[in-house]
């Protein structure tokens, strides 16, 4: 038939795969307030409500991987580059060999029932076929009660995502960006919290207020670089905030796997293992296994390392492909540029050099805008009066500038996070993002970065890593909550006078399991935490 073995004879240049149930959104995790029967940890993995909230995709497999461990001890506070690299190496060794993460695995049958498997936990392995959209309590072999909910909920993420994308000049949120122009995604304009004078591509346009909030325009012809030299100010001398404080996820649903698990089920040493590390993974069934069960043939002659990887997979996982991982909010989006090959979850150690350079790139943008507001910045931007679009091409030049960002203790606003008053070190950015896991400290409330509670405004707290935590405002040291303080913005020369992101969810969370609010009656699909292409990706047929 003269197609000459041409795969394109059966395909277009665009994918058939649109918004995917494999798109993980968030992983929440915190110690349960319910201590009846002992300590319990709550973990909630949320993902795209595809096909709709409450109905899950039977081609998907979700894993919540859990690795309880001791709290990090800083015997030697080495803040050198060598010390940083040693830290990465230690983490790598720990996740590669010492920790053996257990997991909760969920698949969906054609009747929308969930097969849930608890694998590798000291409290015993077991599995159960359960109804979706119902809160249930399962009993482990050792008698531990485990609460579980699989199904549709309200999207617990409350956030001004368009504001974040405006801050990094992420064009696909605002413009139709062709697949053949990957260079036109993050445009070469300084990242910033404050609008730049003359940044017509991304500055708020009162004539088109919904641009980036559902409205997209055709990407104008280049060049897309910015040639200005100052932040934009209005007639009253106010800066214009790139954020609006509005909740872009209001009224949207997700599908979710929510667990409440006794700590004693997760670890044999609950008094020792006070930190529960958790991350989520989505896997999609391989085409071959959709047809029938076919033994995998490791192509070990050509790809010997694949064989090593395959040996670590059980028979079920070999039928699936890893698509997405989720550990820390913004670890992928802000630090890894959301490249699929960098969706590494706990195994993101190899990103360490990239992480340092990317943080420096963000710092050159965000740093001067922090300083312009009169706040002290943790990034060394040479007192630049305006944000700069600059890449550090070497870790050696990037590291001194980001050292404080990486190593400073992220101060909490008060002591409520540490109800037992224990000697728990404050978290640092370097520990938060590598490895890319949600580390839930069971001796804390689990508020970010000691986990992630539903009510945490984590997007704004993430921005606080660029604040100098040694600085004071009104006699009080900076903290991760500073940018959530309305009074700060009331006093700042800026409009709109709002914290970057909303302070609470559009609907109240529940006080009891499953904690996330009921799904909205509409069958709306939640937007991903990072936008999908305007039309399907070309990397699949």
């Amino acid at each position, binding site marked *: 038939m003269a197609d000459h073995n*041409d795969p*394109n004879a059966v395909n277009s240049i665009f994918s058939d795969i649109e918004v995917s149930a494999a798109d993980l959104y968030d992983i929440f995790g915190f110690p349960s307030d319910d201590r009846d029967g002992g300590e319990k940890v709550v973990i909630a993995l949320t993902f795209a409500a595809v096909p709709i909230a409450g109905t899950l995709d039977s081609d998907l497999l979700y894993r919540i991987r859990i690795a309880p461990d001791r709290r990090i001890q800083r015997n030697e506070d080495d803040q050198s580059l060598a010390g940083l690299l040693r830290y990465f190496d230690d983490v790598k060794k720990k996740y590669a060999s010492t920790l053996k993460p257990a997991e909760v695995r969920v698949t969906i049958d054609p009747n929308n029932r969930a097969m849930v498997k608890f694998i590798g936990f000291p409290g015993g392995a077991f599995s159960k076929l359960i109804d979706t959209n119902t809160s249930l309590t399962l009993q482990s072999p050792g008698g531990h009660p485990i609460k579980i909910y699989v199904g549709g909920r309200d999207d617990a993420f409350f956030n001004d995502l368009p504001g974040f994308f405006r801050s990094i000049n992420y064009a696909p949120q605002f413009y139709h960006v062709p697949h*053949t122009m990957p260079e036109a995604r993050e445009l070469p304009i300084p990242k910033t919290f404050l609008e730049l004078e003359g940044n017509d591509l991304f500055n708020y346009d009162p004539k088109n207020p919904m641009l980036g909030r559902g409205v997209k325009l055709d990407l104008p012809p280049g060049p897309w670089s910015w040639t200005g030299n100052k932040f934009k100010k209005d007639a009253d001398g106010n800066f214009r905030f790139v954020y609006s404080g509005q909740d872009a996820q209001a009224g949207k649903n997700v599908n979710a796997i929510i667990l409440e698990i006794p700590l004693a089920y997760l670890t044999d040493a609950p008094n020792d293992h006070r930190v529960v590390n958790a991350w989520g993974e989505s896997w*999609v069934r*391989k085409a071959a296994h959709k*047809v029938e069960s076919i033994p995998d043939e490791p192509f070990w002659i050509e790809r010997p390392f694949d064989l090593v990887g395959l040996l670590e997979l059980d028979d079920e996982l070999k039928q699936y492909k890893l698509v997405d991982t989720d550990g820390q909010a913004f670890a992928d989006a802000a630090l890894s540029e959301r490249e699929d090959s960098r969706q590494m979850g706990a195994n993101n150690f190899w990103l360490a050099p990239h992480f340092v350079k990317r943080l420096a790139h963000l710092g050159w943008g965000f740093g001067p805008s922090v300083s312009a507001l009169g706040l002290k910045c943790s990034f060394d931007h040479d007192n630049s009066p305006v944000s700069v679009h600059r890449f550090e091409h070497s870790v050696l030049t990037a590291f001194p500038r980001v050292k404080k960002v990486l190593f400073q203790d992220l101060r909490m606003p008060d002591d409520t996070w540490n109800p037992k008053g224990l000697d728990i070190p404050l978290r640092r950015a370097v520990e938060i993002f590598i490895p890319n896991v949600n580390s839930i400290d069971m001796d804390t409330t689990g508020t970010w970065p000691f986990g992630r509670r539903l009510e945490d405004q984590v997007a704004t707290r993430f921005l606080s890593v660029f604040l100098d935590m040694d600085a004071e405002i009104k006699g009080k040291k900076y903290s991760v909550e500073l940018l959530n303080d309305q009074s700060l913005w009331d006093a700042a020369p800026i409009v709109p006078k709002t914290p970057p992101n909303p302070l609470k969810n559009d609907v109240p969370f529940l006080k009891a399991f499953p904690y996330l609010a009921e799904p909205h009656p509409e069958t709306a699909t939640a937007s991903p935490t990072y936008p999908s292409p305007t039309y399907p990706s070309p990397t699949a047929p």
Partner: protein
Amino acid sequence: MSLAAAAAPRAAAPPATDFARELRRIDARIAAGEGALAPPTDTERVTTYVDALYRRALLTGDLDALERVEPAIDRGIGLITHPGDLHLLKARLAFHLHRLADVGRILEAVAPARTCPEGQTLLADLDFQQGRYAAAAARYEAVIAKDRHWGALAGLAYHHFKMGDPAHADRLYAEAEDELTAKEMRAFAWLELQRGVLDLAHGRRDETAAHYARAERAYSGWWVADEHCAELLAVAGDLEAATELYERLISQVSRPELQQLLGQLHVLMERPGRARSRFVQARAGYLDSVRRGGVHYIHHLADFYCEAIANGARAVEWARRDVALRENFITQAALAWALMRGGAPAEAAEWMDRALASGVQDAHLFAQAAAVYGAAGEAEKAASCLDRSRQFNPRLSRFHVHR
């Protein structure tokens, strides 16, 4: 799936097939995109609409419709600021219609279309079609090193298939399959068909049948799978079943080469009247395409005047035009075959020398070479080629589908 099952008539009221469902989705997209090519519009609307038109033409195998997509692509290009995606689509369309010079011209002129992985894979396909086999392999490998796209793996597999390493080719096809998910079942089915073709080229008919059956299970209702099954039935000697299946295909898909294949089956079944009728329809279809400026069927016309309605002079004429479009082992061998049929065995042998110099190891090619060299009086070369043909496929059939 047994061969008999492949030809069995379908139930009167079958459930919607994967093919039917996909076609319905595309039609819905086309309906939703009506008006996309008139201002005011935007990149997403234009691209989605044009892509849907293109997909529909490909899926239904309607080359006339595919030709009609091109003006829509051109209109789209004129409407949007950054038409790189549409240029890539246009290059793909040109490749599908064998307008290889256009492919090269488009990719040369449009950097975004050329530099993306899809563009690089298309350039590798172009290299192969233009006889630059080593360059094609190197380019596929470069794409794979960066992005293990299944299409590049399949392209490299085809290269190894033709260069005589079927085991490596099959492994690469399997690797390509391994890259696909349950959301890409048509691509998986297509790869299974290629693995079947690979087996068939080496006489492994049962293995071929197994691959074709998996293709059908992966993506049901696809005429392309039926067309492969029809060939297999014919090669296996079940000419009645093959005829029935080709007739059904012709009722679904308007492709003149299907008419020619059915005509050739009638020849094998000694039904000259029916064969003639099919050949006339095939010729009309080919020439209609050529009259519209198409080059897709030039190769088929060369073959037609050799195997269907014999006319050596015309066969040579079309084969020379084919070589001028793309000189590779396929067109070189086709010209050699036409020259032999046209009574010029010495020149035929020269062209066959060129075809074999490509390094391609293929039973059908060696069988043709044996005949050409025999006609040219080069008995030793003819015997050697015949041996090699049998070595690659001891069960080579007289029925052959050009792929």
